[in-house]
């Protein structure tokens, strides 16, 4: 398999209830590809955290998952407000989420560090007023 299998999902930024649908679907896709449960869980958690971030912080975006022979790549792209200080955002406990988001069970400032923890590589490209693109890979 030299060409990757590519899955693309539009993530609706106006609907908190549907947030995470893409990650649930992707998890099913990976199960059908007979990838090990441990890898599937890591991909699912990282993608879900990123998907929730796109919904609560960026008004939605696009998630693209590419499955290669030796790795899985997850790219999350949004046209939201961007992240002013990426290093700060990566710190455990840093969050700009308002009370309303905390009441929904999110906003502890754990998402980005958890994405890093669950993947083998992660990079964030972000520009204020333009948007954020997060790329992560998990080796197979």
């Amino acid at each position: 398999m030299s060409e990757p299998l590519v899955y693309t999902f539009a993530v609706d930024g106006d609907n908190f209830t549907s947030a995470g649908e893409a990650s649930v679907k992707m998890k099913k896709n990976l199960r059908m590809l007979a990838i090990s449960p441990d890898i599937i869980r890591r991909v699912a958690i990282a993608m879900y955290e990123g998907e929730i971030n796109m919904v609560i912080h960026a008004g939605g975006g696009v998630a693209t998952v590419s499955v290669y022979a030796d790795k899985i790549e997850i790219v999350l792209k949004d046209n939201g407000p961007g992240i002013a200080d990426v290093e700060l955002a990566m710190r455990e406990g840093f969050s700009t989420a308002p009370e309303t988001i905390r009441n929904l069970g999110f906003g502890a400032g754990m998402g980005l560090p958890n994405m890093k923890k669950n993947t083998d590589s992660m990079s964030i490209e972000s520009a204020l007023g333009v948007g954020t693109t997060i790329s992560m890979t998990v080796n197979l």
Partner: protein
Amino acid sequence: MKILEISKLLNAEICCGEDRVESEVCSACGSDMMSDVLAFVKDQAVLLTGLVNSQVIRTAEMMDMRCVVFVRNKKPSEEMLEIAKDSGIVVLTSPMRMYEACGTLYSNGLGIKGENESHE
């Protein structure tokens, strides 16, 4: 412990997944913060929570959990139950408060160590 036994100990109503209540689980956790569940939970099969929204079920699905227990008689929506059925997750609702529900399960032998974690 069987999920059926959990439902009995917690006086809980089974909202969906009746066909899976005979399956065995060996650990649980309790939280209202899905952020924390995603970041800190490891191999716990049961989630007890007082938070009621679709993200609770999706978080459980992402973590490969088998059962969600809503405490304080909170009732999941039809939409949430659809997501749970689709993911094969048993959903229970118990009149107990979080502290009492967790304490009841813990004192009856349902621990905090997941299947793949070592027991010190």
